[in-house]
């Protein structure tokens, strides 16, 4: 399936130009295999969010290459025409705050993505329910987001990120608002899902509790990445 996961080579991003130019990413190199969960850590201002935005195709990198699966999506310029469809079909997002749509119930929050891609409502809801079940929130399927606990909301958000079976998931501080037990649960879920759906997952985090769980970690400092082996500790 996604035999190659995601690969980033010499990615650069400059904000602004001339005197006010900021080189947020200077040389980013990463590779995440399908089924793998890697950590991306770095001090404030090091370029983590900028990297996620480039990967998420919401800002344009300045130079470099990005390869998703077998497809070169960026090589000194975007190689896909419809970035919107790329985001919808190939990239799952999980944020620090769940950002669920408040006027849709849990099922439709998740089912919205396949629906946007043209999947019929019934089929989209079935897909959503399958993921909600995998994440153990199926009993809240009919509830509105405001009626869920923080942890439940985050699981629904993960379900939304996964529902289109994207080859890559970008998670930005997904455990920040959660206590350590819940944070661990989220990390376990991400690992389970990565394995189950062959997804490459990048987790941006500051969270000391979860850092030891990664087998591989990318450190980013001043826009430059360094790969490191992680502890890969079992969570439970």
């Amino acid at each position: 399936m996604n035999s190659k996961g995601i690969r980033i080579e010499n990615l650069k991003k400059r904000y602004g130009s001339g005197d006010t130019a900021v080189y947020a990413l200077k040389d980013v190199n990463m590779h995440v295999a399908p089924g793998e969960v890697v950590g991306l850590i770095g001090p404030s201002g090091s370029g983590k969010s900028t990297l996620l935005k480039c990967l998420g195709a919401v800002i344009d990198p300045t130079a470099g290459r990005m390869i998703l699966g077998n497809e070169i999506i960026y090589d000194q310029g975007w190689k896909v025409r419809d970035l919107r469809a790329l985001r919808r079909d190939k990239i799952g997002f999980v944020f620090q705050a769940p950002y669920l749509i408040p006027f849709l119930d849990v099922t439709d929050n998740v089912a919205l993505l396949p629906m946007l891609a043209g999947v019929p409502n019934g089929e989209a809801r079935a897909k959503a329910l399958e993921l909600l079940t995998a994440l153990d929130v199926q009993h809240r399927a009919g509830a509105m987001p405001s009626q869920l606990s923080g942890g439940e909301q985050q699981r629904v958000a993960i379900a939304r990120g996964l529902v289109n079976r994207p080859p890559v998931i970008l998670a930005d501080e997904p455990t920040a608002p959660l206590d350590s037990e819940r944070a661990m649960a989220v990390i376990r879920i991400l690992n389970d899902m990565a394995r189950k759906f062959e997804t490459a997952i990048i987790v941006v985090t500051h969270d000391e509790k979860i850092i030891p769980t990664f087998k591989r970690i990318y450190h980013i400092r001043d826009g430059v990445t360094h790969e490191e082996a992680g502890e890969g500790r079992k969570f439970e």
Partner: protein
Amino acid sequence: MISLAGRDIMHAWGKFVFTGVGLGLLIGVTLSMAGIYRGMVDDAKVLLDNSRADLWVVQKDTLGPYAEPSSLYEDTWRSIRGMQGVATVANVTYLTMQVRKEARDVRAMIVGIAPGKATTPGWPPYLVAGRQITRSHYEAVADIATGFNLGDHLTIRRNHYKVVGLTRRMVSSGGDPMVFIPLKDAQEAQFLKDNDAIWQSRRRTEANPAFNRPGSPGLLDAVITSQSSNPYVNAALVRIETGYSAEDVAESIRRWKRLTVYTRSQMEQILVGKLIATSAKQIGMFLVILSIVSAAIVAFIIYTLTLGKIREIAVLKLIGTRNRTIAAMIVQQAIALGVIGFVVGKITATLFMAPIFPKYVLLEPLDSVRGFAIVILICVLSSAIAIRAALKVDPAEAIGG
């Protein structure tokens, strides 16, 4: 695909219903304004219908008797009666004034009707209560809108009248209810001088040596009689004999009697095109202002609702929602607001405004259809600002710093 707009409305229905009702009241006022204009036009037509005249003969070169003062000699009708194609002719006077009943007074149009019966031009064609005027003096038939009842005693100038019959929807083009009285009484009411004035004018006449001549003793009395009598009416109403064309008969009266004659359609033109033209302009102005205010409200509400959803919109964009889908969501909400507003407005206008408004309000179905189309158009246009704001939202905002 599910309806994002619909779900959002269901979720925040209180807000929608509340603003919808506010907008609805405004639309209700707008519909009522249009209804008032229609009512005025209809009143004018009813006025012409109820006078049951085919031709209005008035003073030469005037737009009388409704739009301008007009006076004719009261015996003009005799010579018209003999003309070809004329079935009936009747004198009529119109005078708008205050009619008193005890301490209260009401603005009314006094219609002086020539002796005759219910089918005589100028007479009220049907009564809702009581009977027509049968005596030649001091009886009145009043429109129900005056608030008078059968048996009431009215005071018009110095004379007292008893209400013997009631009509409905007999109003002047200004919306004043009519009070019918015998022609002679009406002429007197129109031209009657008070006692002091009569006495004074008699003294002046006596003092004038041209009238008070020892050689012709009857002259003074004749002059005084002619001064104090009033041989004028405002118009003569003509009915045409079947088989004759109103325009032909009008033309021959114009030619032979040197009077101005209007046909029914010309009269309607005068009433609608001239008499109520100013009111129509005022109402038109109000309609424009109300439309602008409604548009501003819809624009503001939709804009505020959209700003409250910036984060959701950023997320929707990030996960691949097309701009078209987001714009459609906003437009649909604006339309929903318009529909709620229109329904509330229509109900308000029909059930609350029309019955209590002191003027006849005619709500025409076609006006409602037009109003609906305009409301929807305004809603769609005013959602443009909100759509612009939504389309400017950067999906990167969802990822944050």
